[in-house]
């Protein structure tokens, strides 16, 4: 057990009462604005002293109100990326980045030069935080946390202020962090795509309480969670192995349900053949067909069996089992009727190759 959290705290009307276990890898904290995500993260970091609770990180007790134990923040070795960057205004960017090093003992796992390059901070090193743009600040904050060689990373919407390009650049780096440094990460984000790509475990918070928790694939694929996530974000996670790259720039991924072809992105290129990975397939990117359609640009088709149909007001979520793996498809009630779909019937899941978003492809977070 990497991180075990049980907290109770009250802020006026707001009451936090959560307990969850976060295994190795990335644990995403997910929930509406004001649901208590930052409060949880602060309690783990030691910035908030909860009324009552226990926090264990990699076997060490950080907090145990019953035993009267409370480790101060500086002895918790958590790297915290704040929602507001909180750079030290009197230090240069370089000094901010190296700040954590002044206090850390032991081997340095993150390389300064590499972090600087990855986050595009080279040109900013001599500057002071005062004049940085919002995104620049957040990048420095990210680098600072990573370079403090923490044993636990806490990230409170670290990418919200970044543009898509920067996000896409940083995400693989976070993945690598997670996988190479075996750093457990508690990650707050509003973006399901980010969460799906990074998270091993997902904790859904609502008004201070955990409403769903478990492995990312399970929570994100569960039709029940779809409602909490927003229907557009519903989807399934598919485990796969990277197959060989082919001449026309595509790469084969062997999923339980059959082979899939994807464009060979840099992220995929970086993985060795045979590496396990994870695909997130949004329910709305999956079409159902009664027979494999011909003469169409969609390359990926998986034959499956309809397991369950959850009709909504205007559309339905269809759970398809594809050789034991689950896929979700979101289709209109009209299509449901026209195709006469029902549990037990066979159907083909058609997905546009490129509809599998690159940031929804990632390593599994388990040692490969």
């Amino acid at each position, binding site marked *: 057990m990497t991180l075990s959290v049980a907290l109770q705290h009250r802020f006026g009307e707001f009451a936090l009462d959560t307990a969850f276990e976060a295994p190795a890898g990335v644990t995403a904290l997910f929930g509406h604005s004001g649901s208590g995500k930052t409060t949880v993260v602060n309690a783990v970091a030691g910035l908030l002293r909860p009324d009552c609770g226990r926090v264990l990180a990699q076997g060490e007790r950080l907090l145990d109100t019953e035993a009267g134990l409370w480790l101060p923040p*500086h002895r918790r070795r958590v790297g*915290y990326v704040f929602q*507001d960057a909180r750079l030290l*205004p009197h230090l240069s960017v370089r000094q901010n980045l190296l700040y954590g090093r*002044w206090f850390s003992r032991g081997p340095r796992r993150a390389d300064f030069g590499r972090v600087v390059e990855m986050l595009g901070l080279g040109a900013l090193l001599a500057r002071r935080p005062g*004049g940085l743009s919002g995104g620049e600040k957040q990048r420095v904050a990210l680098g600072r946390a990573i370079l403090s060689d923490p044993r636990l990373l806490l990230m409170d919407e670290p990418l919200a202020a970044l543009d898509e390009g920067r996000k896409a650049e940083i995400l693989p780096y976070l993945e690598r962090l997670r996988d190479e440094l075996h750093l457990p990460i508690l990650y707050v984000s509003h973006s399901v795509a980010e969460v799906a790509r990074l998270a091993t475990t997902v904790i859904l918070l609502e008004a201070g309480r955990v409403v769903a928790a478990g492995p990312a694939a399970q929570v994100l694929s569960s039709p029940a969670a779809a409602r909490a996530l927003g229907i557009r974000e519903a989807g399934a996670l598919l485990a796969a192995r990277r197959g060989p790259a082919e001449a026309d720039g595509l790469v084969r991924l062997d999923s339980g349900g059959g082979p899939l072809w994807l464009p060979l992105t840099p992220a995929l290129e970086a993985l060795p053949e045979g590496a396990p990975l994870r695909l997130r397939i949004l329910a709305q990117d999956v079409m159902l067909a009664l027979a494999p359609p011909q003469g169409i640009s969609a390359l990926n088709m998986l034959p499956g069996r309809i397991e369950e149909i959850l009709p909504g007001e205007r559309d339905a979520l269809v759970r398809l089992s594809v050789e034991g793996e689950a896929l979700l498809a979101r289709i209109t009630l009209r299509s449901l009727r026209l195709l006469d779909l029902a549990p037990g019937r066979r159907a083909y899941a058609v997905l546009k190759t490129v509809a599998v978003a690159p940031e929804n492809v990632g390593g599994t977070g388990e040692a490969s």
Partner: protein
Amino acid sequence: MTDWLSPDEWRAVALSLRVSTVATLVSLPFGILVALALARGRFPGKALLNGLVHLPLILPPVVTGYLLLMTFGRRGSVGQYLDQWFGIVFAFRWTGAALAAGIMGFPLMVRAIRLALEAVDPRLEQAASTLGASRPWVFLTVTLPLILPGIVAGAILAFAKAMGEFGATITFVSNIPGQTQTLPSAIYSFLQVPGGESNAARLVLVAILVAMIALLLSEWLSRAIARRIAGA
């Protein structure tokens, strides 16, 4: 120029500078500590400490001088032990003048530093603590640099006050030329005799000159620090 002031007067100027500088520098660490305790601490005697710090401001300087004389004089309650055990003597030495000046300026220094402390964003200190900095390190690497303008302000107030302090000093360590005669004491002496005004005016000018230079330096320093913090 050297003729303009008598040797005793030159010595008074030099002594005032020494006394003020030493008083300011020596009281600075205490000022920071006390400001910290008042701004952040929670302990039973806090109101009392706060009152004690302000006492030199509230009391007529002469009273402070008497209290110092009773306490730190050679036969004073504290003074005799300081002398016996550590060989420290304040009475009728320039060190006594520095003690008096330091104590008189203390409330000003503490208040300036305290105000600066209260304006520090605790979220920055929290951020530093998550990066592994213990309380003392957070203080040294974050709080202290951020309150530097307040420290400079406090120091300059204390220095200015020390340059002008008279009542407590003359009462505590008397007015011995070359030993305890500060600029204000010398000015006082002139003001007590017929026709001494022009001599006093000369010394007043010197006092103003010295203090203005110190003031300009401190302003420049503050601005440099503020610019550093605002960044670019």
